[in-house]
């Protein structure tokens, strides 16, 4: 029996390989090594929640009607009887209430969308804090960044499809933001909505974007993203035997086939459980879109919250001066442009370019495949935490009405506090984080030089009490001393021997300043000499 199966398998393999040379691929992929760490699963969660999105999305397209034609609801959900609504909203109700299991699939789709964006952002944070974006992975960082933007686009277009009153107000905001763009804004709004807001074109257009354009781009980019992961081979955390020239781990087949493959089912299962137990986006409670009603506590999905927070935070008047200007009869709305266009623009541009910004400060030091412990690059870690605090302040302001309600605070006070916090908190968090990193680095030095505290107090014959310290193992020492000790860049002089100003000096000077900001203040790892001396002391 076994022999027969083997012979059949060999025959099939031979048949396929004769026609595709698949043997080469199998050779390349099957025993590819991947290092093991929990934080490498974050990207996997993003990938698997995307697969869940595709699977559940296919189910939903069978029932959703992307049309803004108005109908009167006659379905089974009594509260909505006789209400005029778009076919999009009606078909959402039908999917939820008349298709058995439809509710679950809708909820799974929405929950996995939230998970998808969250996993991407967390994965991105992991890559940032461990320096996994360094050479040669800058391109893959950009691809990942684009995937993040695409996930926001996928999320927002999907969120708006049911044409309920909540998402409709979200679109109204998009319309308002678009119109604020100088010169062309009004026309972009017309282009988007097919005329005046809300029009009848938007839902069908967003449907196409949501089920074809955006997921198509995401799928293609995921392909390139993973291709590059294989090409570069995965990064690894520092430790004995792990170098920039090797990769230490377990093979794709069978270990990661089982672990990663199994993890897909875990993500799927947990999304199903959450969707079964917790209601998400109950559009049947909100009602169909109507430009007139709106309720308090109108929040978008979490990933858009930061832009909403920025819009809330920006005042229309600052100390008696308007932030909307009229110049020669033309209206320029800084109160909308700054929070909704310029600020996300700068934020995202900085994120996208970060690998290059750090490379300017570092200089090209070759391929880096061993990850940084965040403490060992205090400025980067500080910048990361500052970005997060900036983001969190915006999210808090985006939920200020809910916070005010929960904690019985004044809505206006929260807004005033966040207006200051948006400037102060990132700086404070940068300084504190950098300080903590230095502290952790000093702690590492301390540990290497003096060993672990054992808690055992010993009295010497001459009456002196000492605590016994146990030296660190080879592995423990190596982890703490093997990081790159980067010094600020040295640059060539401004003038050459004949007193002629060197071309490109200004740019070099900028890089040097940046480099000093990054590496001027630093804690060096314990040197072998220091270590030998400490050992010498310990023995006396």
């Amino acid at each position, binding site marked *: 029996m076994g022999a027969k199966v083997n012979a059949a398998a060999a025959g099939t393999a031979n048949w396929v390989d004769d026609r595709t040379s698949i043997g080469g691929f199998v050779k390349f992929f099957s025993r590819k090594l991947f290092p093991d760490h929990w934080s490498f699963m974050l990207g996997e969660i993003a990938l698997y929640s995307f697969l869940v999105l595709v699977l559940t999305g296919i189910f939903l397209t069978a029932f959703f009607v992307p049309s803004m034609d108005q109908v009167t609801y006659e379905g089974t959900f009594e509260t909505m009887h006789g209400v005029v609504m778009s076919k999009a909203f009606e078909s959402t109700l039908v999917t939820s209430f008349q298709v058995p299991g439809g509710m679950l699939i809708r*909820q799974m789709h929405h929950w996995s969308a939230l998970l998808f964006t969250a996993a991407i952002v967390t994965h991105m944070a992991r890559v940032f804090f461990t320096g996994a974006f360094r050479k040669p992975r800058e391109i893959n960082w950009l691809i990942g960044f684009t995937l993040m933007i695409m996930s926001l686009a996928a999320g927002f277009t999907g969120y708006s499809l049911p044409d309920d009153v909540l998402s409709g107000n979200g679109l109204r905001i998009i319309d308002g933001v678009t119109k604020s763009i100088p010169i062309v804004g*009004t026309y972009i709004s017309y282009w988007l909505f097919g005329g005046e807001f809300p029009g009848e074109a938007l839902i069908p257009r967003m449907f196409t974007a949501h089920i074809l354009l955006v997921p198509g781009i995401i799928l293609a980019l995921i392909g390139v993203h993973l291709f590059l992961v294989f090409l570069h081979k995965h990064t690894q955390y520092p430790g004995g035997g792990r170098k920039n020239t090797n990769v230490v781990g377990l093979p794709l087949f069978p270990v990661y086939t089982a672990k990663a493959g199994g993890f897909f089912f875990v993500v799927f299962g947990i999304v199903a459980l959450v969707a079964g137990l917790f209601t998400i986006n109950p559009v049947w409670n909100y009602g169909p879109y109507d430009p007139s009603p709106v309720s308090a506590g109108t929040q978008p999905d979490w990933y858009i919250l930061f832009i909403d927070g920025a819009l809330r935070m920006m005042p229309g008047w600052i100390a008696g001066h308007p932030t909307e200007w009229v110049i020669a009869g033309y209206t320029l709305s800084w109160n909308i442009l700054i929070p909704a266009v310029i600020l996300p623009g700068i934020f995202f541009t900085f994120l996208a370019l970060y690998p290059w910004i750090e490379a300017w400060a570092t200089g090209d030091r070759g391929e880096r495949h061993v990850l940084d412990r965040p403490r060992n690059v205090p400025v980067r870690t500080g910048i990361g935490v500052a970005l997060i605090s900036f983001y969190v302040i915006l999210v808090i302001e985006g939920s200020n009405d809910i916070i005010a309600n929960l904690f019985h605070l004044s809505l206006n006070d929260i807004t005033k506090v966040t207006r200051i916090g948006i400037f102060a908190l990132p700086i404070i968090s940068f300084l504190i984080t950098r300080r903590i990193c230095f502290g952790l680095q000093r702690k590492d030095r301390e540990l290497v030089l003096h060993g672990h505290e054992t808690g055992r107090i010993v009295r010497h014959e001459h009456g002196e009490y000492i605590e016994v310290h146990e030296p660190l193992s080879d592995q423990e020492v190596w982890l703490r001393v*093997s990081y790159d000790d980067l010094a600020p860049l040295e640059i060539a002089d401004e003038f050459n021997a004949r007193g002629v100003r060197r071309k490109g000096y200004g740019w070099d000077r900028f890089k040097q300043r940046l480099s000093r900001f990054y590496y001027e203040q630093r804690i060096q790892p314990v040197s072998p000499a220091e270590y030998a001396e400490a050992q010498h002391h310990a023995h006396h």
Partner: protein
Amino acid sequence: MSTEEKQHTNSQQHADGQWVDPGLPPHRPRRADVDPKAAKRAERQVAALFGLSILGTIATLTVYFVQDQTEEVASIRLVNILLGISLCFAMLGIGLGAIHWARTLMRDHEMVEERHALRTSDENREIAVQYLKDGAEDSGLTTSRRTLLKGSLITAVALAPLAILVPQIGNMGGDWNVSKLRHTMWAKGTKLARDPDGTPIKAADVTIGSVFHVIPEGLNDLEHGKLEEKAKAVVLLIRMDPRDLNIQPGREDWSFDGIVAYSKICTHVGCPVALYEQQTHHLLCPCHQSTFDVANGAKVIFGPAKRPLPQLPIAVDDEGYIIAQSDFHEPVGPSYWDRLKGTSPSPSASQEADA
């Protein structure tokens, strides 16, 4: 890998004043590696997890076939919960089983693979560059005489997308008539009607402190563009004690005995400004919390909006119904680049109560 003991021979760590990589830590055997009983137990656990998945699939199908979903929200919720839980078991069983298998039974000796520099070898680079040069030579592109060829190709390729993009983009904006943003359905004599049923409002119905959500009479009868008109025309009708109301200069006859009508569309980004606080006479937009003071010409007192809400001039007709005197005197809703340009409903459009 040898199974050398973890040791503290630290002297080997710094040959020649350099730290020396101690190499991979020794493999730590797991329970199942050394104890056949533990291995057997792990095998049974994995099988049990796969079994759980099978039960989950059967449960999901059972729920699907026996469910009797009715209109009742409670029954839908029950079906949703049961399907969710059983589907969770169907998936989680496979996932956890596979992971448990990998973690307990599959060989976990770490292996090492060398990386190769990503850079192509110099030799290959040279060959690649040579190939490109050869190709360029073959095509004749490098000959200086061929500038006409190059120029026309680049121009043609640069222009060709316009043939597709211009009609595509051109069609998407509908009629491109952006001046529609300056007009609403309101006109002289249009009755103010209740939202959503469309019944006209008498001045006598509007008691002090009350607020009405208003649409123009006839909006509900529109065949086309009902939502577009509604998105511009919705109005809040509020009656205040006339003593509390500071009538704005130039608008002395726009209100009636403490009754004022303001556009409901926020001048920030266009949400409906739906929350009225009776004691303070403040209108609050729930989207971004722009706050307007109805007692003072709906001036902005907090939040991101800059302009006051546009006021609709109203009067009362012979039968006692509230009617509009005209359209709004300025475009309603969010700001846009040329909102103060072009023909607005009235010459007094640019009069803004910025104060």
